[in-house]
């Protein structure tokens, strides 16, 4: 849901991006309208529109006149590759920092990751 960590329009873009990556919104599927987002998240419709338009500018969504917004072909792949670039900064750096703080050795950390993903 919406929180105070960053501008709401960015959170709306990210929510849609997550749904595209997870397959909840497959290629060529219709995205909820600006007003549906506004009503659901109780936010200003202009803010919702800004979040959606950002994805249109990036070519992840496209507009069908008079019908609505749709997920573009190739959007999931495009998102996955850009998310990968951020993965190290966003997840690995904090993980290794916390591990170092607790005195967890690199081998031990790798073993933990392996056992978590196996489980």
């Amino acid at each position, binding site marked *: 849901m*919406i*929180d*105070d*960590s*960053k*501008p*709401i*329009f960015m959170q709306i873009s990210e929510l849609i991006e997550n749904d595209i990556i997870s397959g909840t919104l497959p290629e060529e599927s219709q995205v909820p309208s*600006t*007003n549906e987002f*506004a*009503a659901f*998240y*109780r*936010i*200003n*419709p*202009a*803010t919702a529109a*800004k979040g959606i338009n950002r994805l249109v500018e990036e070519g992840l969504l496209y507009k069908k006149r008079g019908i609505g917004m749709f997920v573009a072909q190739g959007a999931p792949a495009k998102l996955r590759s850009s998310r990968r670039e*951020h993965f190290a*900064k*966003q997840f690995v*750096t*904090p993980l290794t*920092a*916390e591990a*170092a*703080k607790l005195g967890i050795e690199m081998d031990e950390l790798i073993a933990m990751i392996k056992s978590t993903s196996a489980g």
Partner: protein
Amino acid sequence: MSETPAITTRDLAKTYKDVRALDGVSLNLAPNRIYGLLGRNGAGKTTLMSILTGQNFADRGTAEIFGHTPFEHDPTLARLCFIRESQKYPDDFKVRQAFSAAAIFFENWNEQLAQDLVKAFNLPLNRRIKKLSRGQLSAVGVIIGMASRAEITFFDEPYLGLDAVARQIFYDRLVEDFAQHPRTIVLSSHLIDEVANLLEHVIVIDQGRIIIDSEAEDLQGAAVTVTGSAQKVEEFIAGYPVIHRDALGSLASISIRARLTAEQRARAQILGLELSPVSLQQLVVRSTLSSQSDREQTTERQAIK
């Protein structure tokens, strides 16, 4: 933006006896947006809205609504709706009659919307206004404000006595109706966290002066509270504008104005610091307090001179 602003004020000032209610207020409000007018009691919100709706006049400065002075200008006043915190209606009126009167006055009045809202708020149409509870009276104001669909609608703390459920109905219906029928809405509220997500632009007034006039998105995530060992917190926040400081023994919790990058967040984690977002409400409270202490210090300094 080349379109005519909905509201423009230049250096507006108003003094009541020895109280400066407004002190050089200059604003520009674009049409078809939702504005939040925030501030403490007595900050000047109601005075500003009264002047903008022609119900009061300024000692100095100008106020224009769609390019016209509102005071005694009927065509402009017909485009406005102002719902006060303690909105007065003729005592003998029944609720139904208050709505009929509003329907005559406001040319964009939407009867269907009014009826829907009456149902939503469960309002007794045949009861006399003076017999209504505080919350029901507020509901009458909210319904008139929304169903008027005026080009500019001012809601001045419209929720007195409305419970959390009723307030949520108000916010939900406002978003829904605004989406279909965009117009300029100025919402004055103490319950900042409740309305924060509805606002596109935030104006904070304190002791008659504008201390924040920003797009909502520029305020969201614009400040962060850093908590941890005092020495490390100080090290981390060096160079950023500080909004607020709290200390507890060797611990410090300091709010700064900053948008941190992923690297900075990682660095905070390495230092063992905790980061938490500052909500709009906290930001407004902190800014108001710091503007007041700045002013006190200035006054002290002037006194010393």
